[in-house]
């Protein structure tokens, strides 16, 4: 999952100044993390002529966006620049649907950890393609150890906290505790094979 931040006005102005604009604003993830007020503020502060504006959600859904482009065809034709407020996926989908038009984005996209599944949650998964959870009591060292260590703790933790970030628990401490509760401490002695770092991409 991701969060969207509005770019600084100075960064966008050179691309759009004194052009006629059509604006796409995607609210799909607004409930999650789209800064509505900041976007309105930026749009409101533009001196450029805005020939039309479409507010939709899930701009990243191609079928849906295509229908919107049809619905707003006259305004989009009239515009010189199409300015998009969405995540990087939405901006790319729109660019590819309007290949010969100047499509610019007003946003930066940043990653939200722990959001790659569906729901906001405590857990994270590095999608490494080689799941270690069977040896670690169900706690992921790839995602949760600052040093991504796979064969036990680094030895630097203090009182169960990570030496890289004292606010963060040492996952190897947690793994040890959980394995102890499960009566599986012997798995700590297992030395894993070197990780296949190329195991993942499903392309």
């Amino acid at each position, binding site marked *: 999952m991701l969060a969207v931040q509005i770019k600084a006005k100075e960064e966008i102005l050179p691309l759009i100044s004194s052009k006629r604009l059509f604006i796409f604003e995607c609210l799909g993830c607004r409930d999650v993390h789209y800064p509505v007020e900041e976007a309105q503020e930026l749009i409101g502060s533009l001196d450029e002529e805005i020939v039309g504006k479409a507010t939709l959600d899930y701009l990243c859904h191609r079928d*849906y966006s295509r229908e919107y482009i049809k619905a707003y065809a006259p305004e989009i034709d009239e515009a010189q620049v199409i300015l998009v407020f969405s995540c990087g996926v939405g901006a790319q989908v729109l660019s590819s649907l309007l290949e010969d038009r*100047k499509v610019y984005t007003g946003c930066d*996209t940043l990653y939200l950890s722990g959001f790659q599944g*569906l729901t906001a949650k405590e857990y994270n998964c590095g999608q*490494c393609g080689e799941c270690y959870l069977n040896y670690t009591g169900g706690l992921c060292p790839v995602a949760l150890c600052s040093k991504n260590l796979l064969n036990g703790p680094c030895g630097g933790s203090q009182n169960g906290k990570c030496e890289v970030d004292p606010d963060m628990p040492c996952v190897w401490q947690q793994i040890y505790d959980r394995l102890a509760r499960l009566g599986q401490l012997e798995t700590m002695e297992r030395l894993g094979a070197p990780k296949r770092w190329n195991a*993942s991409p*499903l392309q």
Partner: protein
Amino acid sequence: METHLRDYTKFRPKPAEEIGEVFRRANRMFVLSCGKCYKVFEQEDEGQYEQLLETLGDDASKVAGHKRVDFLCNEFLSGKKISGLDLGDSDSIGVMSCGLGVQFVAGLFEQTPVYALSDSVAHGLNYPSEVGYHGISLEDDSCAACSQCYLNLTGGICPITNCAKGLLNGPCGGATAGKCEVNSDVDCAWVRIHDRLTKRGELLSFGYVHTRDYSRPSWKTQNNLSLQNRESRGEGFYGGFHPLEKKEVTADRRIEQFAEPQTAVIFLCQHIGKRARPIVEPGEMVKVGQKIGEADGFVSAAIHSSISGKMIAVEDRPYPAAPRKELAVVIENDGKAEMHPSVQPRTGYEALPKEALLEIIKESGIVGLGGAMFPTHVKFSPPKPVDTLLVNGCECEPYLNTDNRLMIEHTEEILAGIGIVQRILSVDRVLMGVEENKPEAIAALSRFSDKYPSVQVVSLKTKYPQGAERSLIKRLLDRDVPPPPKGLPFDVGVMVSNVGTLFAIYQAVAKGVPMFQRVITVSGEGLSRPGNYLVKIGTPIRDIMRHCLAKDVEGLLEEYDVKMGGAIMGIPQANLDSAVIKGTTGLTVLRRHPVGVSEERDCIKCGRCVEVCPMHLYPLFYGLYGKQGDLGKALEHRVEECVECGCCEYICASKIALLSFIRQEKAYARSADKG
């Protein structure tokens, strides 16, 4: 519809040897499998479990049981499902899901070993960055969420995710015939960028060299954002969302008396239950507040004339709450506005016994004014004792300010109405939930906190559908009402009443004014005179539109939708010939959406409908079965519990007509029920 969608499912089975090894360590294993997400949702089950059994061979006898849990990473729903499972004699649990699901299950079972039976996989080329499917759709375009978007310089093609080397300042020079030297199956991103820019009439020239700041944003920033979001979404009750409020259009407009209609169309069924029986004849003269329809049966309500004049007909007229015609009394205004002698202020009502108060409410034809229109005298005679009265001042629908203005302008009348209901129900505890986007109402109520100490006003974070009574009960009291249609608030000792209803109760009991008028918000887009109006029941919608548009209404419905109620749950009107009924909270006029919901688009199993459903349901199945024409199967997913709040359809990434499928399926379920 064209199919271009990709499968972004995130895990694959572990190699057979590794699964074998896991099973050697187990005696009896219960298997949980996730139904996967981010894929075109065409079949309910992919048969992963059957594949596992095949892989296991003889070891299959060690499997103690299996349960598929869709969206296993949804901790709230999956936790409920898993805790209700009978795990039999199993000594371990195997999980087929991505790493999120496995970790979640491992966290649930402290004493039982939990094993992963699958490996999670990423989809980006430049693993292990956080790349890929974090949009909602199943598009080819991926985004590394690098926080420094380069798309404006590169014609909308991302060099970070599309260039094997992640180059930012032009091609490496190694591409041959437009293909990448790292992988000759892949197009060189920079050739694509060049071609795209040429099409757009732009040049591949940046003027300066880009360096990338890999340091921002910090993990802490990201994590704080996720935490904030997690808290705000889950706050109070599971599900729901925060729509654009749009309340500012009418929030500051005082309630105005709307002109009496020339002709009033007063429906005989303005409530749940049996239609009222007309007790006046065509040709007869009636007065304001005169009873013209008698409650017919226990669950029914009386109907009163809202104007004085001559009754001209009892006939079928287009009904605003459903696409059908309903019997209505049509009255022609004589312009005299004569009150019926029965409308008299009542002194000493404070001392009246419970039964007398209920009788007044019944005779006054009061029903739930939040939109449900359930006869109030029936609701306030619960078969079980009630310990708490919840007053619903949420008004979570966009645009509406009916309850908001009542709380501001008629604060004390509402509080007095609460007092009357407290007497009827014999409850001491009253909680009044008001969303924080109504600060003026909260301030007005708090001015009376000394005079009405038993009423505790609670300011709630704005969220839809908080005004749904189950959500409100969960939010304010943390009690779970048993599922509908059987479970009702009194099962957990609660009665919920809307502020509008309480105002009407006060009017009826203290002032002797029966239910012949109500406050509605007229708002939306393209209106010259939006506002909050006290209108007579039976005022044709056409009259109201004409006033609020300040122009002719012909052709309005070609460009706009007129909904009775708010923007989300409001009922679209097929024409303007119907009239205001007791359940009309407002009229919302919205420019017709250029792209509507469709039955054809593919579900991508993003799971957002599951996240927002306040009833803890899985609406995506209703779409699947609906499309497949397999209506009866929706019952397996408890479709009868749906409250039709519309959250799922609102949030749906594919804009599937979920509500219409749900209504069909509920109708099917009801007819199957009858035999």
